[in-house]
């Protein structure tokens, strides 16, 4: 009777797959096998595909997972398609038609559970990183399953936010799989196949780690010749990335127009990038000689305090 019920539900779900992300931006992408990933931790070998967009530019990786996650046989295998970007950062998962995720006692994931799982997997600082599987359940509290004659531990209160409740093993296993060694394998594959197209794709990412991966491939002496694309990254990226580029750029540029353009951007920078920029100006007389006149006189873009600091540096 129970099996029939499940079969009916599966039928109703098989009409569409569930995606953790509502829109699929890369519907025209094509994927083909890139490499085989195997880890002792999970005793599964997965074929990792690399995917390209319609213009045949690599955009990321994906794989179909089918893995056991429970110790107590109270939950079904996790069957999912998982996607990473070119730097091995988890992007999203899609369920496979007819294979919904389930929680303790075979309860299906709700929409909120799917969203929460997606957020958990995206959380690189999740406390799951330091938790062992044995930390996940409070064995002193037993939950009675209604469908199987067995019990399972309850979720300790302290980790409730870090997991989908009732699916702690799935949360833990998936987090470690998608954020674990596979990342290194993906990065290595990307590097082996690195190209200008991939570099631009990664620089334009909204993931700071992906941008950093690409930035680290750019030798400092190329910063000036690549100024336009790096300048766009500065304009659109997070403070961490902006500050990284400003810190690494071989200032002053030989081309004064580039210096002027960078200086002009100063007022729109965040506090961290501003402080890094200021430190570079204050700690290097060559940079000071170029940027001080630009910022003080020509562009007049400094606060009174910043102007005072720079004038003092000039006097010294």
């Amino acid at each position, binding site marked *: 009777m129970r099996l029939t019920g499940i079969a009916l539900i599966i039928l109703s779900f098989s009409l569409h797959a569930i995606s953790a992300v509502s829109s699929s931006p890369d519907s025209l992408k094509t994927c083909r096998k890139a490499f085989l990933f195997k880890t002792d931790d999970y005793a599964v070998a997965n074929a990792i595909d690399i995917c390209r967009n319609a213009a045949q530019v690599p955009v990321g990786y994906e794989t179909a997972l089918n893995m056991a996650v429970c110790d107590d046989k109270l939950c079904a295998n996790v069957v999912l398609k998982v996607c990473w970007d070119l730097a091995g950062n988890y992007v999203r998962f899609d369920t496979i038609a007819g294979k919904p995720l389930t929680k303790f006692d075979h309860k299906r994931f709700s929409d909120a559970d799917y969203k929460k799982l997606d957020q958990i997997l995206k959380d*690189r*600082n999740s406390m799951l990183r330091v938790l062992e599987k044995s930390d996940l359940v409070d064995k002193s509290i037993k939950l009675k399953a209604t469908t199987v004659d067995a019990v399972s531990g309850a979720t300790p209160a302290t980790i409730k936010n870090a997991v989908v409740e009732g699916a702690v093993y799935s949360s833990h296993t998936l987090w470690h799989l998608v954020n674990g060694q596979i990342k290194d394998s993906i990065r290595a594959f990307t590097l082996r196949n690195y190209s200008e197209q991939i570099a631009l794709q990664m620089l334009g990412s909204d993931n700071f780690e992906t941008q950093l991966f690409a930035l680290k491939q750019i030798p400092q002496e190329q910063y000036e010749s690549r100024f336009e694309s790096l300048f766009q990254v500065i304009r659109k990226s*997070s*403070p*961490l990335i902006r500050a990284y580029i400003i810190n*690494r750029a071989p200032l002053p540029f030989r081309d004064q127009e580039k210096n002027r353009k960078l200086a002009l951007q100063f007022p729109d920078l965040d506090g961290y990038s501003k*402080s890094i920029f200021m430190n570079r100006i204050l700690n290097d007389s060559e940079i000071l000689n170029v940027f001080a006149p630009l910022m003080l006189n020509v562009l007049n873009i400094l606060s009174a305090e910043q102007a005072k600091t720079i004038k003092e540096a000039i006097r010294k």
Partner: protein
Amino acid sequence: MKRVLIALLMLISGYVFAQNNSVLIEAESFASKGGWVVDPQFVEQMGSPYLLAHGMGKPVKDAETNISIKKAGKYHVWARTKNWAPGNWEAPGRFYVAIDGKKLERELGKNPGWNWEYAGNMDLSKGDKKLSLKDLTGFEGRCDAIYLTQSENEKLPTENEVLKKWRLAQSGLTIAPQQVANYDLVVVGGGIAGCAASIAAAEQGLKVALVHDRPVLGGNASGEIRVHTLGIYGKFERILKMLDTEHYPNGSADALKEDQKRMTNVEKYKNIDLFLNFRAYGANATDGKITSVDARQTSTGESVRFEAPLFIDCTGDGWIGYWAGAEYNYGREASSKYNESWDEHGLLWSPETADNFVMGSSVLWGSENAGKRVEFPEVPWAMDVAKKYAEKNGEWQWEFSQNDLSQIEDAETIRDHMFRAIYGSFYNYKHPTQDTQLSDKAKMATVDMSKRQAKVDSLQLKWVSYLLGKRESRRLVGDYIYTFNDERNATKFEDAVVFEKREVDVHYQVNLLDDEKPNFLSEAMFYKTDQYSIPYRCFYSKNISNLFMAGRDFSCSHVGLGGPRVMRTTGQMGAAVGFAASLCKKYNVDPRDIYLSHLKEYLNLIESQK
């Protein structure tokens, strides 16, 4: 233990210094503080403890004191104060000065930056007068000093050094303290490390002075800051159980009970003299050796010189070492300096180039259901910081650091930034809009605004700390600098005295990755380790021969601090140096000699403490 109380006339009548036609009153010396609190956190930057109207939005009761007017006539009244959130709005912390109940004409607290503000003038007869500070807002108005003068055009000093000398001249005091006290050991800072150090040394028979700038012990663990203690006990379970806390949520009022426990336990020791409300302001050193530390009572201004052969810097900010000329580090080292990079978190973990973006300071806070509708005033001066963020309490994630702000020199700016974050976010919580709703959804909670409204209406602020809970500041340099590698490799040390197995955990501000996010929230990154140990050589100064340090100012790198910065661990450090001090006395040697010549006996002494 002897609680040191020195009865001075100043205690009763206020810290009042009258010259013929002028009177200077230090606000912190007011005989009755009313609802104002003494804030001594920023003395080194702005010159003095001051009174703070910490009413969480409700005006506090008047502070009052008596002054004696020697010569009748017209007096001009000035107050040294500050508009702590200047901008295009009314200053948040405004107040009046009143004499014998009559208000002077001008509202104060309007000047950006610490400075003298003119309060008005009044004809005064000869004799005693009652001087009052009348708070108008409950939002952190502040007053450092009041000055009455008959001179119409007196130019009051503003520059710090000039002001310092002027204050002394007005008061007839000297920089050198009036009293001298002698001890075997002087411990400065009464956080968990300082308490543990004092107990350990006292148990071994040393006569100890514990000098602490607050009325209660415990530092970040005290009921004034309310961070729970974490970490393991190592070899010092017995001592640390006298001082630590339960694992209640940070900010919990349960911290107050632990204050009582801690005080009772420290008071048991007859050979600890506890100097509460004394803030150290100088260390005198010659030839790389400290001879004395000077400290001043935070209300009365009374000063004491503490002389001893040995000193322990448990100030957190490493002030004793700094004043004595000890080598120290501040900031984040380049990852290459000690090879501390961790690919998993890359630049967030350690920068490629050294910078000052250290872990920040927290201000914990919370609200409660008042059981009835409670209004919370508009706080336009807070909204630049809080923006649309809405919250009703703040845990450790309420943390602020900026690359161009020093956790020491800019501490008042940092604390005030947190005030704006808290009051603004609480206002948003009480007055939700579509935008603030989004803030809540971002935390994965679906908010039903119609159901929430009644709960929100009755919310009131219960407690907001006005003391910064600092994580990181100066790190004094010892014979060994402890780094991340010692944690991840579990380096074995022959002189291991502190043990920990807590994850290495360093923080970054969330707006680093998204500048739309609040700049007053942080996230933690955890590196899981096996048990690691810290060598004794991290707990005495490399170049000041008789200085120990215990607490967050011990000898380590920025990332190295990430694991052992919690308070059971810093308590272990305190206990370890307290016992070392006892052997220094026994053999009449410096801290380094314990490592060089008496290590076995020292380790045996520690081993016997379990």
